[in-house]
């Protein structure tokens, strides 16, 4: 779930919970407020009544009778004064049930004793509770509507706000992680944000990438230097062996051993120069300004490699559009890329098999070349590693030094060409080379 969605769900959930709690507790709140108010008004009535008694005397109410009682018309309130025992002293407010004209009504009743003309009287003022509680339901409903409306409004505001708040995170991921091509040569701009946490994340990523760059640069430098430094000693050995082989005094047996040594040295030489070649590609030491007509390039390769095709009695079919020209490429590198792939298609092929080169334009308008062979195929567990250095899919045969596809990959990365492989063991592999549309001349 997205962070913004999570935030919205959480915020809305908590709001709903609080509103629900409020609405549920509303009757109690209303009841307690109402009873406070009732108590207050009862006391007020008491004060007024006692005031009257004080000013006009008890007869203002009693009118000569023993007691006094008065109900409002709807029996919502009543006042009663009656004589009480002289020692009786009460002053309470409580809720009691009264039966008035057959109806059981709940009253909030104030009882208060007071003295008038040396006599003790009991003042009783009542107010129905029903008249208070009847407002609870509508109140709750209105509160519910109002609060729901408010929640809806705040959700909209929250949505907008969280989106704005979280936007830098998306930007950081997009600019620092997704749209970056290794190695990260271009210095990336810090993402603008006032959120401290995002700033921290952004800075951490920038410094992490700088670190990766520094290390990668070092590794590259090392590969370049090491393979370069090996060239001189290899040179010396090779030339010494060449001279030695030309020596008239050596026997046939010695000559054969020298050839053995030369083979080993040649292997060392090819590994070093392949590594050096890869590091030169990675260091941008090749100019990409050539336009290459693909058919011509493939025909050149076919000629160059024909002896291997014949050797295995392979059919080699080039079926691609005549007009296709690729621009902004390095001719030699592109040649090497196709050469290595086709060479592999031959090397891992079966006797009498075929190698087919076809093309297509995909939905995005990018140009694709397919190199399909009928060879031994690549096991699915190996397929992810075939472009790694010194990785050989088929170790049982002496097939090479494991740098051919690494070179292909370096050239592809350098030209922004994508290479995908699909393969079925014992049936063959297909390499799909995708050239971005902009490379079509």
């Amino acid at each position, binding site marked *: 779930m997205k962070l913004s969605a999570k935030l919205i769900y959480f915020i809305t959930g908590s709001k709903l919970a609080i509103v629900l709690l409020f609405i549920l507790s509303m009757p109690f709140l209303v009841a307690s407020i109402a009873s406070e108010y009732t108590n207050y008004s009862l006391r007020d009535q008491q004060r007024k009544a006692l005031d009257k008694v004080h000013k006009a005397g008890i007869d203002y109410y009693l009118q000569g009778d023993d007691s006094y009682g008065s109900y409002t018309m709807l029996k919502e309130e009543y006042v009663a004064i009656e004589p009480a025992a002289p020692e009786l002293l009460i002053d309470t407010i409580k809720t009691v049930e009264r039966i008035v004209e057959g109806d059981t009504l709940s009253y909030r009743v104030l009882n208060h004793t007071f003295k008038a003309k040396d006599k003790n009287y009991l003042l009783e003022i009542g107010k129905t509770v029903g008249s208070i509680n009847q407002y609870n339901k509508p109140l709750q409903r209105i509160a519910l509507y109002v609060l729901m409306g408010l929640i809806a409004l705040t959700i909209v505001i929250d949505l907008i706000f969280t989106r704005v708040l979280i936007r830098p995170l998306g930007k950081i991921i997009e600019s620092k992680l997704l749209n970056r091509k290794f190695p990260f040569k271009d210095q990336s701009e810090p993402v603008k944000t006032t959120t401290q946490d995002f700033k921290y994340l952004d800075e951490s990523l920038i410094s992490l990438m700088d670190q990766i760059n520094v290390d990668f640069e070092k590794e590259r430098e090392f590969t370049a230097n090491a393979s*370069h430094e090996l*060239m*001189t000693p*290899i*040179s*010396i050995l*090779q*030339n*010494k062996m*060449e*001279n030695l*082989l*030309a020596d008239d005094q050596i026997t*046939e047996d010695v*000559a*054969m051993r020298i*050839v053995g040594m*030369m*083979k080993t040295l*040649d292997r060392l*030489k*090819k590994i070093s*120069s*392949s590594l*050096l070649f890869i590091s*030169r590609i990675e260091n941008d*030491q*090749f*100019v990409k300004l050539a336009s290459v007509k693909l058919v011509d390039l493939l025909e050149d390769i076919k000629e*160059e490699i024909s*002896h*291997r095709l014949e*050797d295995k009695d392979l059919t080699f079919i080039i079926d691609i559009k005549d007009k296709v020209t690729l621009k902004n490429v390095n001719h030699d590198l592109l040649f*090497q890329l196709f*050469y*290595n792939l086709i*060479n592999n298609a031959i*090397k891992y092929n079966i006797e009498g098999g075929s190698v087919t080169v076809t093309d297509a334009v995909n939905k995005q308008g990018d140009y694709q070349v397919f190199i399909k062979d009928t060879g031994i195929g690549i096991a699915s567990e190996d397929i992810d590693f075939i472009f790694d250095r010194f990785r050989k899919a088929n170790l049982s045969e*002496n*097939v*090479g*030094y494991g*740098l*051919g596809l690494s070179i292909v990959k370096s050239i592809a990365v350098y030209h922004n060409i994508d290479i995908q492989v699909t393969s079925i063991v014992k049936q063959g592999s297909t390499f799909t080379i995708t050239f971005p549309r902009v490379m079509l001349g």
Partner: protein
Amino acid sequence: MKVLIVEDEKTLAYEMETFLKKAFYLCDLAHTVAQGLEKIEINSYDFILLDLGLPDGDGLSLLPKAKKHNPEAAYIILTARGNLEDRITGLDLGADDYLAKPFSLLELQSRMQAIARRKFNVKEEAVPLGEFSIDLQKRLVQYKEEQIELSRKEYDLLSYLFLHKNRVLTRMQLSEHIWGTFADDDYDSNYIDAHIKNIRKKLNLWAPTEWLETVRGVGYRIKK
């Protein structure tokens, strides 16, 4: 022909000297830019083989000065740096060729011969090869007046062997000459064998080719 080898790796310089002497070149050695300049000022050379990474400076810096004293000479740059800029700068400064280390001495000699043909207008008549004749200038092999149809690679093989006659060339050396350094990771000798077989077959139609020897376990040789 006179050759100056400017190379700070002494062992390497001696190996080149040994090889070139056998091919009847006269060699001088210099191990620094200063020594190189000194020799160039005194002597006149046909070939100057120039290493780029010298202890007292870049070989490229020597090139313009050397050209002043010795404009006729052919300059071949030898370097382990092998990057493109060096190559371009070197050729811009007037170098005639460029060889990346490690190179085969056979290749060096073949390049020198090619330059000699081109630059010094060394007119080479067709030279006899058994009962055949080979014209390196026109890239032709003939039997009497009849031209023998060889593929480009077959001719390259034969002329390379001829250039280094009386010397056994290994299959590796031959395949490197023909397919270059991009002769990828397997120097499969079968292909050389197949080519030699074809050459023999084509030539044998006209005359015997016993001068083209197979040296067991080593390679091939043209004996003369």
